[in-house]
């Protein structure tokens, strides 16, 4: 067995308690270990991706228990890619949190951050549905701590809503898993796929209920339309570097949808064929529309980005809901892009908020406004899907992949119009925050004495250089994704091909244990 597969879970799982128990009162050491752990995770993820890119599906049996009975971790192209994405995102986020001083504003930022990484990596790697639930809970409980990090009345209040909503989601997850176990007698994903395919067609009513319940759970995570209400308040009130990391959490939902509904309830399974795509596509279209309207109406920059996340999840799920290899390749590419774009905008929003507050109105100018406005501009280009950044390629791929769908005029219309509205919304916010503020300053009538001058010079940011380099790191990630779109697409295409021939996955999980 290849022990590297369990490393992305074990490394943070050891590091986080170590930081809590040994380095509790040493913030500098915590920072060093946390960054070192994240760099280590990145190295492991690169190794795993290199191994997975050969196309071989590897499994890791925990405790050496054979597959349908014990829990397996499975490394295929998609899980390796998602773990790599997590690690690549985590590094600039943790650097930003250190550079901006966010990790000093409450205790235990770094251990919670590592636990969050453990949960996310575990959710991507596991091959067992109940274990997926457990890793969801690990990442959620860490996210509760991170979301309320730093405290403050409004943040705690938003935290209560966030926790309550996710506890409901967890309950629903258990109901879905219970239903599936009751019908099939297994929770191993590969074994589920075999049993579901063997199930007689007239006996599938409960199975369909289970499949739809499970879809609802993943839609809660992915913030699909009727279940998205938790996201704006939570993300906008969380510490924004944390929100940048949470950009990967919505992707956990879309990843799970892709995994379960290609492997277990795939397009060829008679019992549930058409069930998922038919419901998901309209929901995704509405999600995109509502996210875009939210961008247009947002009064606060963090809320603006949160609605941007909802909109990009809409685009992503439109591609997912088509359930064919070409669209899935586009969806995976867009997953990477939208994660970086959301993180870039959240971090930029934090730079803005720490200097002049988050309300989208014309206020006093802020320090380093040129640099920050450039970052905001780049993030806006990425989010709206304009050339030259990778959002353009991603949207183009989604549009191209949807041509074979009979509803393609509707899909095209929604995506294109929402892109335009997104541009308008972001342009409104950008010009109010960055341009109007300067007008106010140079207008002598609006400058009553030195009052504005005081506000205009915020306290010097601690180590702002590190914060800026972290944000530029995310931007560099986007640029790389654009420059190397060819190899990236090649990888996502072969990933999609692997996803739509689930026999290889099933064989790797169930056969590998006979020896």
């Amino acid at each position: 067995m290849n022990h590297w597969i369990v490393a992305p879970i074990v490394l943070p799982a050891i590091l986080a308690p170590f930081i809590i128990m040994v380095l509790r009162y040493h913030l500098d050491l915590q920072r060093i270990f946390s960054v070192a752990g994240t760099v280590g995770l990145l190295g492991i993820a690169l190794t795993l991706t290199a191994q997975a890119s050969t196309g071989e599906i590897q499994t890791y049996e925990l405790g050496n228990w054979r597959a349908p009975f014990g829990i397996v971790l499975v490394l295929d192209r998609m899980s390796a890619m998602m773990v790599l994405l997590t690690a690549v995102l985590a590094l600039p986020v943790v650097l930003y949190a250190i550079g901006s001083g966010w990790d000093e504003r409450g205790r235990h930022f770094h251990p919670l951050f590592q636990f969050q990484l453990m949960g996310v990596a575990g959710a991507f790697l596991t091959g067992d549905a109940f274990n997926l639930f457990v890793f969801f809970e690990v990442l959620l409980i860490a996210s509760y701590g991170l979301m309320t990090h730093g405290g403050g009345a409004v943040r705690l209040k938003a935290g209560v809503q966030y926790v309550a909503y996710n506890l409901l989601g967890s309950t629903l997850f258990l109901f879905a898993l219970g239903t599936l176990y009751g019908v099939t007698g297994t929770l191993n994903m590969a074994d589920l796929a075999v049993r579901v395919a063997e199930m007689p067609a007239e006996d599938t009513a409960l199975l369909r209920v289970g499949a739809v319940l499970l879809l609802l759970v993943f839609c809660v995570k992915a913030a699909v339309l009727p279940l998205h209400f938790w996201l704006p308040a939570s993300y906008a009130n969380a510490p924004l570097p944390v929100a940048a990391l949470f950009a990967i959490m919505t992707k956990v939902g879309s990843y799970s949808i892709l995994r379960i509904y290609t492997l277990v309830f795939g397009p060829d399974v008679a019992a549930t064929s058409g069930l998922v795509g038919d419901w998901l596509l309209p929901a995704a279209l509405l999600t995109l529309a509502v996210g875009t309207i939210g961008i247009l109406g947002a009064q606060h920059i963090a809320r603006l980005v949160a609605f941007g996340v909802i909109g990009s999840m809409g685009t992503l799920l439109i591609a997912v809901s088509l359930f064919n290899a070409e669209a899935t390749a586009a969806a995976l590419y867009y997953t990477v892009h939208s994660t970086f774009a959301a993180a870039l905008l959240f971090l930029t929003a934090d730079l803005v908020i720490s200097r002049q507050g988050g309300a989208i109105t014309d206020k006093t100018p802020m320090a380093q406004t040129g640099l920050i406005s450039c970052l905001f501009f780049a993030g806006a280009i990425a989010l709206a899907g304009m050339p030259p950044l990778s959002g353009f390629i991603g949207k183009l791929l989604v549009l191209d992949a949807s041509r074979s769908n009979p509803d393609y005029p509707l899909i095209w219309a929604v995506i294109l119009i929402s892109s335009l509205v997104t541009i308008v919304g972001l342009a409104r916010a950008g010009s109010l925050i960055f341009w109007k503020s300067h007008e106010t300053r140079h207008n002598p009538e609006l400058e009553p004495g030195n009052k504005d001058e005081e506000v205009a010079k915020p306290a010097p940011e601690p180590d702002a250089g590190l914060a800026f380099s972290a944000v530029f790191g995310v931007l560099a990630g986007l640029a790389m994704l654009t420059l190397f779109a060819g190899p990236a697409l090649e990888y996502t295409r072969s990933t999609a091909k692997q996803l739509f021939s689930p026999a290889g996955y099933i064989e790797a999980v169930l056969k590998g244990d006979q020896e």
Partner: protein
Amino acid sequence: MEALLASAVGVLTAAGIFLILRRRTFPVILGLSLLTYAVNVFLFATGRLALNAPPVLNKYEEVAYTDPLPQALVLTAIVISFGMTAVIVMIALSAYLSTKNDHIDMTAQDNVDEAGEDA
């Protein structure tokens, strides 16, 4: 037996859903707890109901046994929901102490504060 168990799950779920739709945090947390009880009982039933049967296979003779896996699942679910309930109680308590009210919704006032606080 089946009717008793099914109605228990149904009543617990209904009461839980009623409570989570209330406006204050305390009933909402109670509702979440009732829902987790409901799901725990439900998970038990997924291994089929067997009375007075051991949760292990007998190698030597054919005797009825009850599926042990749902019991392990329920145990995991109980531990997780217990921890989660403790977390939400703490967060709700600190939200109550810092805002001096225990409404679960974000009011317009909160959003004003939010813009002000960040500035």
